[in-house]
């Protein structure tokens, strides 16, 4: 069976910050560029980013990209590739100033320069003292950024395909990527986008967890497509968790609540952080607070009928203070927990926030294979990609920087690589759409199958319980078996709505096909890594004098590479050679 084919120089999947930044490069270079997005571009999850974007502009005090690089390597717990980290931090001032010229309404100093504020983990002079490096537009940085990038794309005549879902990569027998197959939701039509270059900028996959701050759109579509096409996924065991998501809903309760005096309590009403961090208490780092919360829950001191959350208490604060300083948080608690925090404490759990791993790329945004060679025609940027700049944990404000730098560099690489490509499109291989159409047909004709919602929920609970912020050997081993069983259920999902037009049930089933690939990769990689590093913390790899923080560099200072075929794992060395400066040598990560 044949499907319609549309030809473009380049196709970009995803219209968040990375996709829009890449599209500007391509469209302004005169390439015929298609951007596919499940939603209108300014509805992408980049909008949710509040904190800012880091760049060593030095507008408020002395700063240097080399200091930023040091902080990022340290934040990554030395798992980040130092060539990519140098590239990103060095490019940061340039991409931020460019964004300013695109119309980004950054906050200003009295002199009219971009205002910069301090942010956790960003220091001056190689870790000496905090530095003001984060550039923001009030608490709407991501939103303002997306609007500036979208407007620039409108000017450049980028062609958007809105409410289209990409289903699969097209690869030929040489492994070259020749575009994607996509579904238009409004018509139900399946179309091939035949392109000389394909950039994935599909964002994260935080919806694999039950408790996630990620919007529903973050279903790891790019990772699922890449995995099905035989591309490895890198460092998928590393996920950043935020300590205080509203239990059940995942909605974020900002750290500012603890800053205003909020106290975490267990079922006995005890302020348990006094035991874990006697000095910082409730204001200890995210990792420390999250682990303490999980320990309380695991040792039976959780709250509620299932003893599966702890409480964030602000009832001791003056109601006037809460109304004045935390009005939005009070509303969130009422809406998502059914609790007025003036009268009762808020139920909270550590909640998945950001994916550090992803589709392996070099610092140019080119996707690389097992041998480290560029997969011709394929590029990735943003949260779906792993350059790797975040390594085992991400510094705040480096996510928006990542998508600007690598969105741009992937676009530049496409332009450079296409200069040496033949002018004509390489022909699509015979039967290029067969597997995709078979997948759609299976879904269409499935009887006595499984429910998409129930299966997704089973996957999310399994990930949360077996592979959460604090990990245990037995739970991980059991989790691998469970997630492989759930994979079998995903293969039998059934939808009742068989209509062609606007069939959201079909789209949700297809999203689940992507989520399960990410869930498998995460569980299997986490089970295999027998150390603690960054955001991957295991109970059986504790902090000891021989191995501070449970990190085992001798055996585990390497990237995990997962292949869908047989769930095979391999490892590759961390790139410790920056582009121009000296290596940031391994040492214990402490703040």
């Amino acid at each position, binding site marked *: 069976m044949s499907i319609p084919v549309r030809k473009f120089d380049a196709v970009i999947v995803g219209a968040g910050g990375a996709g829009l930044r890449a599209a500007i490069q391509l469209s302004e270079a005169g390439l015929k560029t298609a951007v596919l997005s499940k939603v209108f571009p300014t509805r992408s999850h980049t909008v*949710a980013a509040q904190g800012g974007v880091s760049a060593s502009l030095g507008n408020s005090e002395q700063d240097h990209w080399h200091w930023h690089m040091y902080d990022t390597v340290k934040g990554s717990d030395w798992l980040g590739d130092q060539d990519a980290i140098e590239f990103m931090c060095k490019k940061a001032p340039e991409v931020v100033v460019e964004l300013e010229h695109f119309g980004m309404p950054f906050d200003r100093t009295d002199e009219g320069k971009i205002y910069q504020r301090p942010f956790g983990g960003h220091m001056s002079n190689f870790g000496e003292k905090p530095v003001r490096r984060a550039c923001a537009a009030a608490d709407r940085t991501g939103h303002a950024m997306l609007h500036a990038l979208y407007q620039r794309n409108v000017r450049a005549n980028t062609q958007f395909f809105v409410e289209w879902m990409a289903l699969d990569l097209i690869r030929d027998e040489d492994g070259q990527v020749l575009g994607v197959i996509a579904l238009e939701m409004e018509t139900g039509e399946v179309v091939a986008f035949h392109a000389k270059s394909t950039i994935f900028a599909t964002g994260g996959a935080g919806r694999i967890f039950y408790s996630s701050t990620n919007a529903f759109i973050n279903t790891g579509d790019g990772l699922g497509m890449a995995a099905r096409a035989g591309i490895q996924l890198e460092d998928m065991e590393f996920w950043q968790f935020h300590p205080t998501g509203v239990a059940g809903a995942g909605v974020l309760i900002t750290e500012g609540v603890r800053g205003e005096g909020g106290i975490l309590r267990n079922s006995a009403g005890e302020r348990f952080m006094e035991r874990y961090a006697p000095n910082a208490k409730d204001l200890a780092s995210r990792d420390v607070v999250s682990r303490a919360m999980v320990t309380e829950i695991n040792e039976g001191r959780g709250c509620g009928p299932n003893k599966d959350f702890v409480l964030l208490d602000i009832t001791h604060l003056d109601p006037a203070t809460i109304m004045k300083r935390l009005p939005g948080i009070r509303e969130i608690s009422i809406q998502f927990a059914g609790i007025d925090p003036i009268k009762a404490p808020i139920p909270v759990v550590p909640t998945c926030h950001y994916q550090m791993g992803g589709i392996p790329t070099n610092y140019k945004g080119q996707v690389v294979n097992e041998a480290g060679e560029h997969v011709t025609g394929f590029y990735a940027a943003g949260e779906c990609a792993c350059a790797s700049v975040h390594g085992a944990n991400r510094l705040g404000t480096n996510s928006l920087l990542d998508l600007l730098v690598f969105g741009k560099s992937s676009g530049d690489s496409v332009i450079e690589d296409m200069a040496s490509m033949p002018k004509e499109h390489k022909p699509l291989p015979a039967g290029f759409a067969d597997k995709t159409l078979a997948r759609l047909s299976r879904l269409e004709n499935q009887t006595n199958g499984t429910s998409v919602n129930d299966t997704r929920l089973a996957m999310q609970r399994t990930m949360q319980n077996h592979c959460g912020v604090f990990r245990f050997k037995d739970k991980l081993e059991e989790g691998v078996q469970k997630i492989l069983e759930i994979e079998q259920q995903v293969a039998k999902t059934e939808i009742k709505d068989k209509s062609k037009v606007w069939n959201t049930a079909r789209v949700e089933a297809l999203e689940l096909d992507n989520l399960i690939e990410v869930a498998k990769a995460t569980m299997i990689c986490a089970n295999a890594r027998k150390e603690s590093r960054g955001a991957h913390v295991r109970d059986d790899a504790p902090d000891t004098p021989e191995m501070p923080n449970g990190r085992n560099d001798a055996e585990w200072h390497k990237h995990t590479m997962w292949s869908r075929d047989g769930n095979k794992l391999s490892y590759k060395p961390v790139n410790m050679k920056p582009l121009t400066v000296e290596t940031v040598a391994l040492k214990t990560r402490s703040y």
Partner: protein
Amino acid sequence: MDHDALNRLQWRCTRRALLELDLILGKFLVEDFPKLNDAQAEVFAVLADMEDHDLWPMVNGTEVCEDAQQAEIIAMLRKSEVRRPQ
């Protein structure tokens, strides 16, 4: 509202930029939307098409909605409690 229009609205209510609105609009669509009259349903569709950073402050109560018809629907959204079982 026919199948196609309702499904399109469902997509736009549950694939937002912000999780908060995914949760609130998604639940409202299932539980409250069927009870709205045609005029109210139209107003809801307009709200669902708004940018998240315009809609969320009104639903969260940190900004006031100036439009009377929209304010009526916003008030309904604000009453909605969204909880999932643990």
